């Protein structure tokens, strides 16, 4: 028992640190990619290719004064960044990050906790992500914050149903909710190592998942919550210093989390030839991240009513349709 707790704790710490590191360098990636898309250079001064920029940013933020406006509800204002951050990284507790491996004589599973309700856990954690935002907006007592929080929340709940339903197709094919089993099912020893990936069995489901994931994380073109031109910074307008950076990290952690879930459900997770399994997962995750950034560099923002209409009148019926079609196909098989 004690041994298991120690192994789990070590795994947890490694994964949390790895996720935070990925978050930090995702910000670098985003600035660099968007810059090149706009024929700029992006960060170049801190280290080679500006690679040390995230460290410089972190140092700057940690030395900044923490302003608390007098209109805020103090306790909720202080709790909101924590409530926003913890669900954001909690998804990684059920994402299989590597094949099982041996470490100094201990047999270690490549997942922190292989829940038999893994996919539902992801769904549950995603649904809790709303609170950080809504509490931040509410407790700030500022118009921009409240408006941003409300928009973000309404948008997230509109797309959350579609997000859940787009996964149902995969579960229908796989008949399991365990993330570990889902990854194992997608493995293949043949030269066509990707032949069992669920993305080929669920193309529509994947597109729906991708769209809902972008909306769920409040990213461009669904970034109404932080529409700078009208809402300043949305729900975290009144935050500064480390508290602000917690929201910032949460946003990237959320993106990484949906990337990891997408890679696991549709692209075989850590499965892949030659390279170590962890690298395969990271590669797939960062392809998703690149896609996110690409979208930001390319697309204009939706109008809010278009966004809500799209969620309820297009994505949701399509997701239901996908579920029914998949069920019929599974039936025939």
């Amino acid at each position, binding site marked *: *028992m004690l041994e298991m707790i120690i192994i789990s704790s070590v795994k947890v710490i490694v994964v949390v640190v790895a996720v935070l590191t990925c978050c930090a360098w995702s910000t670098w990636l985003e600035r660099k990619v968007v810059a090149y898309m706009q024929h700029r250079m992006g960060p170049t001064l801190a280290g080679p290719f500006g690679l040390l920029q995230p460290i410089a940013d972190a140092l700057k933020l940690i030395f900044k004064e923490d302003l608390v406006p007098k209109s805020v*509800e103090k306790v909720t204002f202080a709790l909101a960044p924590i409530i926003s951050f913890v669900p954001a990284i909690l998804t990684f507790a059920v994402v299989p990050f590597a094949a099982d491996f041996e470490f100094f004589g201990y047999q270690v599973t490549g997942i922190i906790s292989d829940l*038999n309700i893994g996919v539902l856990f992801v769904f549950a954690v995603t649904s*809790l992500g709303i609170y950080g935002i*809504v*509490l931040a907006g509410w407790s700030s007592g500022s118009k921009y914050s409240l408006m941003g929080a409300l928009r973000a929340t309404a948008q997230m*709940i509109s797309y959350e149903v579609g997000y859940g339903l787009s996964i149902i197709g995969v579960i229908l094919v796989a008949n399991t*909710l365990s993330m570990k089993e889902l990854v194992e099912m997608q493995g293949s020893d043949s030269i066509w190592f990707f032949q069992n990936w669920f993305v080929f069995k669920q193309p529509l489901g994947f597109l729906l998942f991708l769209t809902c994931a972008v909306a769920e994380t409040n990213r461009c073109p669904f970034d109404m919550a932080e529409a700078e031109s009208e809402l300043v910074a949305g729900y975290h307008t009144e935050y500064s210093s480390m508290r602000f950076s917690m929201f910032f990290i949460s946003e990237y952690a959320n993106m990484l989390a949906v990337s990891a879930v997408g890679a696991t459900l549709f692209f075989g997770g850590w499965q892949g030839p030659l390279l170590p399994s962890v690298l395969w997962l990271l590669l797939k995750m960062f392809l998703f991240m690149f896609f996110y950034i690409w979208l930001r560099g390319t697309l204009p923002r939706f109008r809010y009513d278009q966004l809500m209409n799209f969620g309820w009148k297009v994505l949701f019926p399509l997701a239901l349709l996908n579920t029914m079609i998949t069920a019929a196909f599974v039936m025939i098989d």
Partner: protein
Amino acid sequence: MSLDLAIFVISALVAVFGATMMIFQRNPVASVLYLILSLVGQAVLYVQLGAAFVGAVLIIVYSGAILVLFLFVIMMLNLRSSADLGEPSPPVSRFVKYFVSCLIFLELSFIIRESLGAGSTTSAGIVTMADDSFGSVESVATLLFTRYLYPFELTSVLLLSAIVGAVIIARRATEDELPPQPEKAVGPISQKTNEGQE
């Protein structure tokens, strides 16, 4: 086992503490937060009983959906502090409140005492499980779609009536705001610009 007991006691205490604080808080947003805390505690209890699915549903539906609705209502009415909640109720109705809650408490105590005799219990007060498949998603689904089919289908009718109710409330709300109030314009700016196009 001792760790099991510790987790049980802690999560049960958290659930009760959250529920109690929810009632005693005058700030409605804090009440909602305590209710979430209580629900998380309860979800842990369900997981310990082997009913992980019920625990997950508790989080998804209650914490993730219904409490968001509560928060929206609180925001819509702008209940910031105790001052917004109005006067405390008069002594007579307060007496009725306490009396009814005592009755409910007694009733619940009897039910729990009765039902405890039904299953065998371990020292931790955890009802021992029938078998491993108990509470798993598969067994819940099998029961739901065979034995409890009619309640399940009736649920959809219940949900349908909820949608209809929501829509009717929505229409009332929009009809109320039809005469435009320039100072208290609700909603984004796009509201005005698009009215002509519809």
